[in-house]
């Protein structure tokens, strides 16, 4: 083991970690935005509406993320229509291709999580909303979505961790994320174990931070479920 290599290249690994963070945060935020309408369409009463989100989710959960990245990054360039369109400057960039693939992927998983959470809300609460005369939009905005947010947190934390780990695949389309940077350094120094281990430690550290943050948010969001502490006033 040569720790000196790790120390001298550590700043560059951190540069890679920064790219990884950008990838994860951007795709998670965009993914959540897309996931909500997909989830709502998935629980629609009409089978015709339901089938599209079902197929979308089935495709993105049933194929490897690696295939999806390659389809976006290499696949799009097969068509001249795409190359001549205004989207080409975006689809040419590995960074944006990774974002597109990750967003599509995570929104499929997130939609299922959202759906599960909305369906986990007791029917009585929906009925109560109707009884007090709320419209559908009011019901979702005031009751169902805030309730779903609390239910969703543990599963959603897992999804972020999975996305963080999945983001390592960006290195296969020449992006210098944490894994990509590690591979570049190794090509120069021939110390695969040391550098990959260091990268692994950084991934671990990031996921521990995510887990800690989620623990706090969960505690706050679900504080109404927590142990009730009643202060009994002293007699006398």
């Amino acid at each position, binding site marked *: 083991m040569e720790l000196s290599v790790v120390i001298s290249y550590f700043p560059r690994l951190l540069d890679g970690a920064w790219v990884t963070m950008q990838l994860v945060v951007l795709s998670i935020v965009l993914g959540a935005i897309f996931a909500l309408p997909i989830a709502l369409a998935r629980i629609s009463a009409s089978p015709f509406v339901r089938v599209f989100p079902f197929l979308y989710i*089935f*495709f993105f959960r*049933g*194929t*490897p*993320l*690696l*295939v*999806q990245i*390659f*389809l976006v990054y*290499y*696949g*799009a*360039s*097969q*068509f001249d229509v795409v190359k001549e369109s205004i989207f080409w400057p975006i689809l040419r960039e590995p960074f944006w291709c990774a974002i597109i693939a990750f967003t599509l992927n995570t929104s499929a998983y997130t939609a299922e999580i959202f759906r599960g959470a909305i369906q986990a809300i007791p029917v009585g609460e929906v009925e109560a909303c109707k009884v007090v005369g709320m419209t559908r939009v009011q019901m979702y905005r005031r009751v169902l979505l805030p309730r779903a947010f609390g239910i969703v947190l543990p599963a959603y934390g897992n999804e972020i*961790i999975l996305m*963080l*780990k*999945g*983001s*390592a*695949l960006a*290195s*296969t389309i020449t992006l210098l994320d944490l*894994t990509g940077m*590690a*591979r570049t350094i*190794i090509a120069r120094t021939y110390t*695969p*174990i040391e550098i*990959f*281990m260091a*990268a*692994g430690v950084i*991934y*671990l550290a990031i*996921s*521990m931070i995510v887990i800690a943050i989620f623990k706090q948010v969960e505690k706050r969001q679900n504080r109404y479920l927590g142990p009730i502490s009643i202060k009994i006033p002293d007699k006398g």
Partner: protein
Amino acid sequence: MIDLHGFGNQLLQGAVITVELAFASLIVGLILGLLGASAKLSSIKVLQWIANTYTTIIRGIPELLTVLIIYFGATSVLMGIASWFGYEEYIEIGPFVAGVTALGLTFGAYATEVFRGALQSIPKGQHEAATALGMGNVRKFYRVILPQVWRVALPGLGNLFLVLLKDTALVSVVGLDDIMRKANIAVSSTKEPFLFYSAAACMYLVLTIVSMVVVHYMEKKASRGIKRT
């Protein structure tokens, strides 16, 4: 089968490798998972610590990184061990063995948690009844505990297998001739990436559907005699 510019057969061969890799990793992972769960539930502190470290590390780093570490690292580790025994030749680990090791380790870490939950769900009375009948620990485990653990753990293991199936694609990065790498080869000679990556995606979808059907059938079989709620 569609011809795909003559690469259809190549992709099918890749699918065979993918399936072989998935099953080999599954077996390694199931064994590791059972060992890990037993270690976590044992009263020996060292075993608990080893199992906890194992699951924390493997679940915290990307699967791709695990594959790369095993592929590049295992060679030097093995050579280090071999040189203790006085063996100085060069040892090389192929992508298949590296893939099975990495994916088996990954599956094992997640399966540890699934098995732990399942083992804990077996009522204490079952253990006591088996002991009362005079069964030894080994017989108790595979006659009474394991069949019930299997039933509880199956849905979780089924999910893990689907994840494993998709993770096999990562081993193409270190040169295994699976579906993904065959697709890459086809793309580099035909310049039709969309066609071949779509074909690869379809093959993974077919494998996913088949596995889902098989898991469903196994769940049904494991739960026979149990009232459905």
